[in-house]
């Protein structure tokens, strides 16, 4: 039987079906695989999230809120707060920071009370969603408070990672009064978006 096999390098002309079927089958498998990634519904959730939070150019002018008390947690005792709600309009920042993110009351001598301008950052969009910050400055124009208005919370892992990392980023930003923050392993993309959002605010300040 095996001796009837055609010699090396010589094959009979394949039928059209033989040529096309592997490509069709593998394409179907590939498309099926990609659509199954990260749970079968994440695709549509991701899209809704994008639709809800239109992309804001970080270079666009930032919103300066005249009355801090309207939306900002100016009177809040802690400087690091995390708001897990994705819609900024209804954001009521909560102080449910994880245990390892100790509230910081770092107030350098020259900064004075944290009661200056409240500035909302542009939405920094990244692979997993959007990060938007609300910052507050002292009258001497020193960054004294950062609140996260939006972060990606459509995936369980995103929430876990961000609940852990964002309070630490808030704390470092306030301590350093700048966007010079160390990235935390596993939360690098959040870090990049966070820094981009914060830098956009700082760049807009005189």
């Amino acid at each position, binding site marked *: 039987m095996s001796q009837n*096999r055609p010699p090396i*390098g*010589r094959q009979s002309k394949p039928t059209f079906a033989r040529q096309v079927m*592997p490509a069709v089958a593998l394409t179907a498998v590939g*498309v099926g695989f*990609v659509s199954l990634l990260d749970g079968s519904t994440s695709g549509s959730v991701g899209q809704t999230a994008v639709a809800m939070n239109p992309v804001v150019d970080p270079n666009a002018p930032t919103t300066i809120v005249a009355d801090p008390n309207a939306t900002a947690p100016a009177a809040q005792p802690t400087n690091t707060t995390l708001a897990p709600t994705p819609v900024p309009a209804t954001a009521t920042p909560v102080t449910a920071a994880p245990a390892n993110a100790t509230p910081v009351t770092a107030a350098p001598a020259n900064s004075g009370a944290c009661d200056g301008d409240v500035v909302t950052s542009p939405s920094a*969009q990244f692979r997993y969603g959007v990060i938007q910050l609300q910052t507050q400055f002292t009258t001497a124009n020193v960054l004294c408070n950062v609140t996260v208005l939006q972060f990606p919370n459509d995936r369980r892992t995103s929430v876990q990672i961000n609940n852990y990392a964002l309070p630490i980023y808030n704390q470092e930003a306030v301590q350093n009064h700048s966007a010079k923050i160390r990235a935390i392993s596993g939360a690098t*993309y959040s870090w*990049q978006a966070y820094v981009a959002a914060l830098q956009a605010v700082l760049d807009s300040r005189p």
Partner: protein
Amino acid sequence: MPQRTIRMPIRKLRSPGTSLIRDTDVGAVIGFLTLVVVGMWWHHGGMIGFGNSMVLRMTALDQITGLLCSEAGLLGLILVTRTPLLERKYGLDRLLNWHRLLGVAMSLLLILHIVFSVWAWSIPGGVFNAVKSLTGGESYMALTAVGTLFVLLVTLSSLKWFRNQLSYEMWYFIHLTVYVGLAMSFSHQIVLGSDFATDKFARWFWVGLHVVIISWIIWSRWGSLVRASVRPLRVASVTHEAQGVTSVVLQGSHLQQHRAQAGQFYLLRQVVRGRWWQANPFSLSSVPTTAGLRFTIKARGEASEAMTKIRVGTKVIAEGPYGVCTPDAVGDKKALLVAGGVGIGPIVSYLEHLKPSSEPIVLYRAHSDKEVSHLEEIEALVKERNGRVHTLIGPRAKLKVADPFSPNVLLKLIPDLASRVVMVAGPESMVKAVQRGSKAAGVPSENIHAERAWW
């Protein structure tokens, strides 16, 4: 009284047979991998935020270049399995050439991946901080950075200029460190690569794909070496053919089950102290039979010279057969066989296999009479098949014509050249000259077959 041992009649070895793979299947697999890789990237964010900021743009680019770099690497690894599925369709020489091209593509993508990553991480901390993070600050990145250096070193050593400075063995052992390099950089894909760090399904697919391909290499590549080592052949005879040219016949009882075809080649490794780690390709110089495999070897380098001095009885590990340039390409047509120097070996095996209807014409080019081997054998074989032999012997300057393979000279010698199948074996420059000349003389390129992988 006759001996009581049963002697099997000598017969030709069975042909290895052709592969079931088609060109379209190869396209489908490459398309599938690309679809999965790009689809994964797209599904996990892809171009989101691409127009927004430099960080996000560079992040998207470093992701996709990293993934495509891995894909090129995986495809390159599939080729070195030397799986019969691909080898019997395309031949080992072509597989290794594609492997080289994929290696170059992988390295270019790797360099882009590094540039985009450093760029993305340098905002806002600066390039120095980015390099610091990417060579040690981030988890597993120290390991990855060293692995990357290995991979780039291997690519560098394979560039023509560096390759020519190194001995084959030196180059080969440098080349093996690519496995170490790939293993070291794999961890950062899983821990930092956002496609895998947070998506369990994608992670299992990616890890599984690597496990499958590595197991395939171990089974197919290293397994074939182990199988060949367990049952080595032995040198049955060594014959001096011409100055520096020796023919070696290898025998083994398991040749009964072995499959091989005239025109194929083996990687031979003599089991002698200080030599066992060198494997070099040699073409069959007769139709392979159960009586043995004959190779005609010319001392051209340190390794092949050692092979010409091999002793009767030495164990030889023969991996193969490889190659798809076989006399079956002639089919029912007539043949022109062109041999240059020791390229006469495969030509003898082609001749033996050809039908009388092929009326073969042999052109034998050699630099001096002393180099000529197997001439009587060829004359006898050609006579049986109503063909003829032309020898072109002497240094190029002493030949009557400037280019013996120009279309005019070829056509004058062989008026029906255009209807013949041309098979060439010899030095690269001669192979090219014959290909050029016969194409210009009207031979369709699918009827020109050349073997270059032998020594």
